[in-house]
């Protein structure tokens, strides 16, 4: 028997949407859209919020939500920048520092959610204010810049025409897909998200799983912060506040169920691509206001939710008929 390549229905749909968008963009705005430089910019921008979306998505799979991704990223970026300002050669320690801070922030979120049993939305809502506050305090409320050139070069570096930031994004996506798809830990996260009580009875230590999930989200967001620091050579406490909404949108677009238990990392990655293509395409129309993007995101979010709902319902109706 031939072994069929297994592709998730949802991922298949997403790939079709992506191809359709690329075709539309290519045909209508071929000469200004299909350029290497545009794709390079896309790769750089996408890496940042794409990573945050992955972090948020994992938390949503576990049945929670992480609203603090953006602020964890900013905090990591600011602290790395401050360290590198003081010591030009401390690039590696700065990166490590950022990742440790990201992990600590995530662990803090996880602690609030698992041990103190604060609902995830509220816990991360409170902690994002806290993280943003800490960022404001350590940066004195101003923009931190002046990272050494060696570091900022990375933001502009390309490997065979592909931006390095995008490669980092792909690398993390691959790692996370393996972690969520192939390891015991990943399977447990899905279980906890589907039904926390059943997971407890199945002998899973929910608390440690949740803490680890949020720690991963924190670390991934920290990487996003480092990438944006490299790209724009500055970090600020209120940078990218609109990304929070965008991350949730991407995760839902990518097939993550907001109630937990369903979703795939490759799905999220393709959703990131779709969003970036759409957004870059809109940018090629100079007279279309940026604010229309908000409008489209909102409609897309609700539209995708309804579409998934209808498709799932049809599927379950079919199954019910087959059963009877």
């Amino acid at each position: 028997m031939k072994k069929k390549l297994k592709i998730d229905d949802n991922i298949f749909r997403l790939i079709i949407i992506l191809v359709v968008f690329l075709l539309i963009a290519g045909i209508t705005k071929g000469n200004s859209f299909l350029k290497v430089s545009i794709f390079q910019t896309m790769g750089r921008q996408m890496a940042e919020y794409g990573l945050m979306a992955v972090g948020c998505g994992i938390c949503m799979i576990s049945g929670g939500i992480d609203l603090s991704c953006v602020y964890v990223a900013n905090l990591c970026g600011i602290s790395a920048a401050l360290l590198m300002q003081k010591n030009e050669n401390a690039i590696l320690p700065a990166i490590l520092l950022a990742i440790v801070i990201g992990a600590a922030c995530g662990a803090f979120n996880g602690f609030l959610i698992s041990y103190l049993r604060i609902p995830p939305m509220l816990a991360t809502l409170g902690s994002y204010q806290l993280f943003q506050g800490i960022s404001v305090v350590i940066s004195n409320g101003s923009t931190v810049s002046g990272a050494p050139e060696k570091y900022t070069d990375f933001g502009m570096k390309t490997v065979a025409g592909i931006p390095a930031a995008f490669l980092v994004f792909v690398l993390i996506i691959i790692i996370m897909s393996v972690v969520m798809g192939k390891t015991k830990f990943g399977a447990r996260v899905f279980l906890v998200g589907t039904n926390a009580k059943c997971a407890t009875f199945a002998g899973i230590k929910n608390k440690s799983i949740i803490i680890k999930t949020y720690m991963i989200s924190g670390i991934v967001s920290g990487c996003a912060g480092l990438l944006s620091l490299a790209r724009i050579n500055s970090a600020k406490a209120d940078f990218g506040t609109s990304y929070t909404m965008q991350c949730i949108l991407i995760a839902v677009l990518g097939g993550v169920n907001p109630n937990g238990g369903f979703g795939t990392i490759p799905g999220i990655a393709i959703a990131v691509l779709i969003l970036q293509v759409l957004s870059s395409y809109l940018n090629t129309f100079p007279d279309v206001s940026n604010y229309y993007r908000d409008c489209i995101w909102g409609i897309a979010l609700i539209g995708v939710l309804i579409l998934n709902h209808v498709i799932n319902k049809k599927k379950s109706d079919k199954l019910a008929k087959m059963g009877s």
Partner: protein
Amino acid sequence: MKKQMNKVLRQTEFWVFLIIIFLALIIQARSGAFFANNNIVDIMRSMICPSLYAVCALLAFVSTGPDVSFPLVAALSSYLAITISIKINYDGPWFVVYLIGMFFGALMGALNGFIIVKYKFPSLIVTLGTSSLFSGILLGTFEAARMDLPATLQRFAELSLLTVKNEKTGLGSTLPMPFLILVAVYIAAYLVLNYTMVGRGVYAIGGDEISAERAGFNVKKIRFGIFVVNGMIASIAGLCYAVMSMRYLPNEYAGGEMVVIAAIILGGTRMTGGIGTLKGCILGTLLLTMVTNSLILVGISVYWQKVFIGAIIIIGTAIPAIQSIFGKNKGKKVKGGEAA
């Protein structure tokens, strides 16, 4: 008597009240300016809009789940109301402008309510989506910019309820008319929530949807109605904000939702639904307003404001959670005792 004491002690509102008094005394001791008449009026003034939003958040939380679209509903509906009244050169009584706003607010709320009721999606995600949509319409389609109020609202804005002047510092402060609107909304909400069948239904469907349905409440209608009412209250708040700042500022609305939600959670509203009081709304809002208003009085840099708010939210939400954990342990012990 003891039973009553116990009941009071168990209410979150009571503890928030204690924290407020404690904080007020500290601020008074450090700065000596907290109980000055102008500071009190200032706090009352800055509480008007958050307290109105708090009612929206309360209704949504108690019955369904978080609603984060109210700031944008407020912004868009008050924009429409103000533009329409300027376009038609309206110069009648001020409350007609409010009615126009409430009409549009109700429409937007109905959109939220329809999607949430029909598809049973999580309200957080839906309202995030619609608020993004509204912001796109407001800033993209209408290209809203700062503008002056129509003449009738301008006159309304210049009225004042109370004007005080601090003898020592010479700083004055006025309480604008929207304060009366706030009081009216709270009285109406209190009466409806406590003395009507629909009001009890709001709590019932949040507590247990299936039980409420069996008890004869029309869950879908009530839920839809709540989001429509939320839209109307949000639009009132939006117009009040415009009246208080004497002009319409489209970019000042977004972003307030999280602090309002934090305030009502501090005031004892449960995330899981079914529990929450208007008293708690006021107290929670008062606490957060005091913190943001008074840090400067105590001499703490504004930079620390967010840290304080975040810490208060986390501590405030952790206390009920810890209380319930301890409560459970206590229950177990009692049971064990009986068995022995």
